[in-house]
C-alpha cells in the first residue's frame, strides 16, 4: 500500500510519514511541491492507494495539482490538507474531484481513522 504525500513543509511531511509508519504503513512517496509531485506522478511505476496534498504550496498549488492528477486518475482517493478553514477553496477542491479535506492541525488518531476509512474496500 503506497501513500503519496505532497507538502512544502518537511516537518509536516515527516509528521504524516511517521504517523503512517506507526500504524504500519511503511510505503510512502514524498514530494516537496506541486511541480515536484507532478514529475514523480508522471513517472510512477506502482499503484498509489491514497494521495495527501497540501493546498497552499509554491509553484503548482494543491488545487492545480489535484486537477492534473484527476486528469489521469479518477479513482484513487485524494485528501486535501489545509491550515485555514477556507470553505470556498475546499468546496472548489471537492468539485475538482478531491475526496475530502482535513484541517490542520489534526489529531493523529483521527487522521489514521480517516485514512483507513478511505482505503477500506
Amino acid at each position, binding site marked *: 500500500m503506497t501513500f503519496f504525500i505532497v507538502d512544502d513543509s518537511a516537518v509536516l511531511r515527516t509528521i504524516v510519514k511517521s504517523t503512517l509508519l506507526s500504524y504500519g504503513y511503511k510505503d510512502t512517496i514524498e514530494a516537496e511541491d506541486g511541480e515536484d509531485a507532478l514529475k514523480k506522478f508522471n513517472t510512477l511505476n506502482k499503484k498509489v492507494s491514497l494521495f495527501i496534498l497540501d493546498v497552499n504550496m509554491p509553484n503548482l498549488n494543491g488545487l492545480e495539482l489535484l486537477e492534473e492528477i484527476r486528469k489521469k486518475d479518477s479513482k484513487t482517493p485524494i485528501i486535501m490538507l489545509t491550515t485555514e478553514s477556507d470553505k470556498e477553496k475546499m468546496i472548489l477542491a471537492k468539485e475538482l474531484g478531491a475526496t*475530502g*479535506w482535513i484541517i490542520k492541525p489534526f489529531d493523529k488518531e483521527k487522521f489514521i*481513522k480517516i485514512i483507513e*476509512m*478511505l482505503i*477500506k474496500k
Partner: protein
Amino acid sequence: MKELFEIILNLEKYLYSYDEGDLLKLLEIKEIFEEIENFIINDSNLSDFNNNELFETIRALNNLKKDNIYDSIADFINSIKNKFTNYNNENNIKNDNKINESVQMNSYSDDYFIHFIDDKDMLIKFSDEIKEHLDNAQMALLDLEYDPSNNENINKVFRCFHTAKSSSAFLGVKNIEEISHAMEDLLVLIRDKKINIQSEIIDVIFYGIGFIRDLISVLINNDYNITKTIDIYIKINIFEYIEKIKRIIETYHTKKIGEILVNTGKLDDDSVKKILDKQTHENKKFGEIAIEEKLISQNDLRNAILNQSLSVKKINYVKVSNERLNNLIDMVGELVIIQSIIKDMLKEQNTGDQFTGRNTTQLEAITTNIKNIVLSMGMVPISEIFNKLRVVIRNTSHELGKTIDVEMVGENTELDRNIIEYIYDPLVHLVRNACDHGIETQEIREKNNKNPIGKVIISANHKGSSIEISIKDDGKGINKQKIIDNALKNELINPDNISNLTNKDIYNLMFLPGFSTADRVTEISGRGVGLDVVKKNIENIHGKIDISTEDGKFTNFIIKIPLTLAIIDGFVTIVGEKKYILPFVIIDEIIVPDKNNISFLENGEMLLFNRNKYISLIWSFEFFNEIDYNKDIEKKIIIIINYENKKYGIIVDSVVGKQEIVIKSLNEVLHVYRKIFSGGTIFGDGSIGFVVDIDEFMENVKK
C-alpha cells in the same frame, strides 16, 4: 434515555454544519452513530430504533452525500425525538386532562409551563444549540433578502426552527415551541414555493429569530432558574406574534381554484368534494372537471384563475451593476440639463409657435419622469440596514447581559443605495451607544420602576427631499451637567460662556472631537471613536445630526440626510465670474454687511459682529482662484455657515438662491488642480457651476 437525547442533539449539530468532503466531521458523525447503536442495542426499550440497515450503511460510508443518506438520518433522529417528547409527556402528565390541543389559546393557562424541565445542564445545552441555529438562520436570512430563490438558505432557516421546535418540546419550553411551530409552518410553505418571499415575510422571520433569542436570554440571565424564568415568560405575550404568522400564511397563501369558487359562491362544498373525488381517478385539472360536469361556466373559471394569480404578488428582479446604474443616472442628469437648455433657448427665440410650446412642455414632463424612474432604480428600502442593526442590537445586548426590545418603524422607506453604505457605520455606532450607555441594566430599570426590558426604536421617514432616521432608546438619558463637566475637563468650552449656552448648544458639545461621557470603557463602545466621527460621516453626505434627550427617560438621535447623492439641495452663489454652489444644509443666514459691524484684526483677518457674536470672515475669491476682485465689503454678501459647531462668514459677490443641483463629476485635471470642489453642474442657461466640498474648503481656509 436523557443521555441518548443528548447524543442526538450532538449529532444534529454535526449534521447541520457538515459540508460534503469534511472528513473530520464525517468521522465524528460515524463515531456518534456507533455510540447510538451501542445505546440502542443495550436498552430493550429502544428496540424500535434498531435500524440495522441504516447503521450498516453509515458504517460503510466514506463520503456522506447530502442528498441520499441525509434524509434517512433526519428521519431517524426525528423518530427518536418524537418518542422522547411523548415519553416525557407521559411521565409528566398525571390526572391532567385539561390540555386540549385544539383549543386556541391566547393567554397562558396555569399549566402552560408545567413540563418545563428543571435541569440546568440540559437547559445550557439547549440554549447553546438554539443560539447557534439562530445565528446560522440569521445569516441565511440576510442572504435571502438578496437572493430569495436560494433553497439552501431557506432550508437553513427551516432547520433552525425545526430543531428549536423539537428540542423545546422535549424540555417543556412551550412558548418557544409554539413560536417555532408557527414559524415552521410558514417556512414549509416558503420552501414548497407556496408562498413567495418578500420583505414583510423576512421581517416577520427576523422578528421570530429575535423573539426566540430574547426568550433564551431570559433563561440565561436568570441563570437557568426556571421559577424566575417562568415568572418573566408569562409576562411576554407570544400569541399576538403567532396570530400574525397565521394571518400571513392566510394572506399570502395561493388559494386553490376550488376555494376561490366556493368563496365567490359559484360552487358549494359538496360539488368540490365530488370534483376532487373524480380528480383522483382522472388526470385532469379541477377546473376542467368542473366545466365538464357543467357546475361552472368557462367565464367563472377564467375569473377564478385571474383571482388566483392576483393573490400571488410576484415581483421580478433584474440585477444591474452599480456602475451601469451610476452611468445611467449620470446620463439622465445630462439629459435633464440639455432639456432645460433647449427650453430656455426656445423661450428666448419666442417663435410664438404653439407646437413648439406644447412639445417642449411634453419633453420636460417625459424627462422629469425618466429622471424620477432612474433615481428610484437606485433606491433601496432602508430595511436592508435596519435588519442588520437589529442583529447588532441583539449581539450587543447579549454581550452586555441586557434584554433589549427593538422596534422598527418605516423600514420600507427608500433611499439611494450609495448613501446606505455611508450611514451604516454611524448607525451601528449609535445603536451600540444606545445599548451600552443608554439602556440601564435590568436591576436599575426595575429599581426606577421602568419596564425591565429596554427598548430601542429605530425609525425612518421621508421629509421632503431628505430622509429622517431616528434612533431612540428609553434609557437613562444624558445628564446636562455631566456634559458640561466633561467639556470643561477637556477644555472644549470657556467656563465663562456656560450661562449663555442653550440646551441645544450643550448637547451639541458631545459632537466635538475629544469629547467622551463614558465613565468607563466597555467592550461595546468607548473604542476611541466618538460622536464627532459619526457627525463627520453624516456631514460628508450632506446630512445633519441632532440629539434630544430627557434625563432618566430617553435619548433620541435624529439624522437627516438627502435621499440621493446625485442631486443635492444647493445654494448657488456668484463669485467673480462663475457660479459656486454650497451645500444648503450648512447655511445659517445671509447677510448684507454694514461696515460698522466689521472689525479688523492685526493679522488682517476680518470679523463680523452678528447677534452678539464675532464671526470670522472668509474671502472666498482667493480659494476659488478669482484673483481680480473688488475688496469693498459693502458691495458683497456674507453667507453665514455652521461648520463643526462654529460659525463662519463666507464673502461672495451675490447669491442666486436655493436650487436642486445635479452633481456631475469634474474632469480629473480640474480635480487635481482644485480639490475643494466635489463636482460640477450645468445650469439651465448653459452656464456651469462648481459644487464646493465644504470640508476641503475649510481645510484650505485653516491653512
